[in-house]
């Protein structure tokens, strides 16, 4: 069990070399544990949006946001409201499907989670699963009995609903 709830922070940074280092260095220096971090450019490619999920709440979380806001490279920061956001993550999963029974089970499982089969050969399939981090966790729990050979998760990315905006 986690001692501290996971929270999602989104922020916009200057899209320049070294900025990811400085941001992640700030988390490290202040002793925060990053659960996941994602980053990609905005339409204005001089800026990038980062999403961090982190084990922190209350005072620590408020302080972290102010630390980020104080950085020259950070343009905007927000703690996303957990009840008013959509959050998605993608996982690529390689399953061992040499056994025909396992293959059938794997295809059923990927389908039931609205996943895609990206590659298939005699012994393995590679599937893409997209969903909330919780949905991905639940897929992986079921897939474990089939045999997960390799796993790559992107980490969560998130937007707030409606008129809310970073």
């Amino acid at each position, binding site marked *: 069990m986690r001692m501290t709830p996971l929270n999602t922070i989104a922020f916009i940074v200057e899209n320049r070399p070294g900025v990811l280092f400085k941001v992640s260095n*700030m988390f490290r220096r202040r002793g925060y544990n990053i659960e996941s971090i994602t980053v990609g450019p905005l339409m204005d490619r001089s800026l990038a949006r980062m999403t961090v999920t982190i084990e922190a709440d209350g*005072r620590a979380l*408020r302080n972290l946001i102010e630390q980020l806001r104080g950085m020259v490279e950070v343009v905007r920061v927000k703690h996303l409201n957990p009840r008013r956001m959509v959050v998605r993550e993608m996982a690529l999963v390689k399953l061992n499907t040499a056994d025909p029974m396992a293959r059938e089970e794997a295809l059923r499982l990927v389908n039931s989670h609205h996943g895609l089969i990206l590659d298939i050969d005699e012994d393995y399939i590679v599937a893409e699963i997209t969903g909330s981090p919780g949905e991905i966790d639940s897929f992986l729990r079921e897939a474990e009995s089939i045999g997960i050979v390799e796993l790559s998760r992107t980490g969560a990315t998130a937007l707030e609903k409606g008129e809310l905006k970073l």
Partner: protein
Amino acid sequence: MAEMSGAEAFVEALKREGVETLFGVPGGAVIPICDALYDADIRFVLARHEQGAAHMADGYARASGRVGVCLATSGPGATNLVTGIATANIDSSPVVAFTGQVPTSMIGTDGFQEVDIIGVTASITKHNIQVRRPRDIPYAVKTAFHVASTGRRGVVLVDLPKDAQTDVEEIELPEHVELVGYHINPEPDERELDRAATLLAKAERPIILAGGGVVASNACRELLELAELLMAPVATTLMGKGAIPSGHPLHIGMCGMHGTWEANHLIPEADVLLAVGTRFSDRTTGRVEEFTEARIIHIDIDPSEFDKNVEASLRVRGDAKIALRGLTERLRQISKKRGEGWMRRLEKLREQRRRMEEEERGEGVKPPDLMKALRRLLPKEAIVTTEVGQCQMWAALHFDVYAPRTFLSSGGLGTMGWGFPAAIGAKAAKPQVPVVDIAGDGSFGMTENNLATAVEEKLPVIVIILNNRVLGMVAQWQRLFYGRRYFGVHLGGSPDFVKLAEAYGAIGVRPGSMEEFEEAVKVGMESETATIIDIPIDPEENVFPMVPPGRGLREILVEG
């Protein structure tokens, strides 16, 4: 737009920032800059080690309020700056550090004298920048001065690869910079000020804790006005010393590990504490759970300080000067509680402290007596810097200060060896006023090579070495808390500091009495070269009061 080299653009950009003095040590990766400086009207103060150059820039900045500037070469030059950068940054001193770097084509190849100084200094600077091309240089310089000197001040490092210095291209010198992620907002929220004023008006036992932010924002007059209106005693942090004149009836001195009897008792007893420009360091609060029962109003320009160490009831983000003025205006309109009992309590504590001081008076010349004698000799505008340890705390407790920016000390980092080069920097900023470093033999030994700079540059600072032949503060802890198991503290191999001074062409004096000490200080003030005053003191001497580490402020020891 004009065609020029990056180094020429660099020097032009420095001139436009009004830089008059540059502290540094050259090396291979900054020779093009040195060449461009050859014809410029900028004073170059050659330190004998880059740490000294950084401390000089820091001392210059703290004494003048203007940006201090230092220059070092790549690799070891840059890493030698690191302690100085960290020291200035934690105390929010506006410093810009320039480092040379290997050519861009060699970055990442472990070239000769290559160090990733951007990576190294990322967590000890307010901001750092590596330029890639000559045309980036003026923009980076402008950014550096802007960021270092605004908001919560701090250090900005600019790393200059050698080819960016030597290449020639069309370069524009910008009038201003636009930083999408950097916004200074000095204006506090009016509603927060209303709430803070209401809370202060109801206080029966108000107290003010003034930090370095009061000095940084030149808010000392506003602080005093508010304190007098509220009849609130004013304690300071080490960085806030000078924010209120010593001797003012509401001045109660420093609080914390070596806080005064009055401050360490009144803070826990207060009902409303107004903290201005302080980050509530552990040396200021003692055991944080027992710091105070008071409701806290925290004013700071940097909101990341709110609730970091001590949780506040009200937070006012903004410039201290504007916020204090806003509070005073509001409080003039509101009727306030009058806490007569609170002033009587202060008087009682003051009386207790005076009586204890009388009882303590022993034989011989003690460091507190020297501090008081020094104060009588120096004009009010004289600048005192300190080294770190016992000498620093004796100075903080017993050397009275009447004006901001006249007492300079390494607070957050506690950097031994800071005071002497910082004094040289302060003297370069304020050549008309006497500058004195209150030192210990251990600290002075760490940067004594800067004597060469003081002599050569005719920056006649005075160094008073309280020479106990030990690392005094460590020895004091070993004496009080480790059963006198002295380890690694004896400084038997120290030089004869009088002869050392003479070897550098400075003046060295070892006074044998208070009269001779006073004479030596007078000689130092008249001298055109540096003066070292070496005063043997008892190695068993302790600094009191002291709150043992991890204890509350009220658990204050006044004797061993």
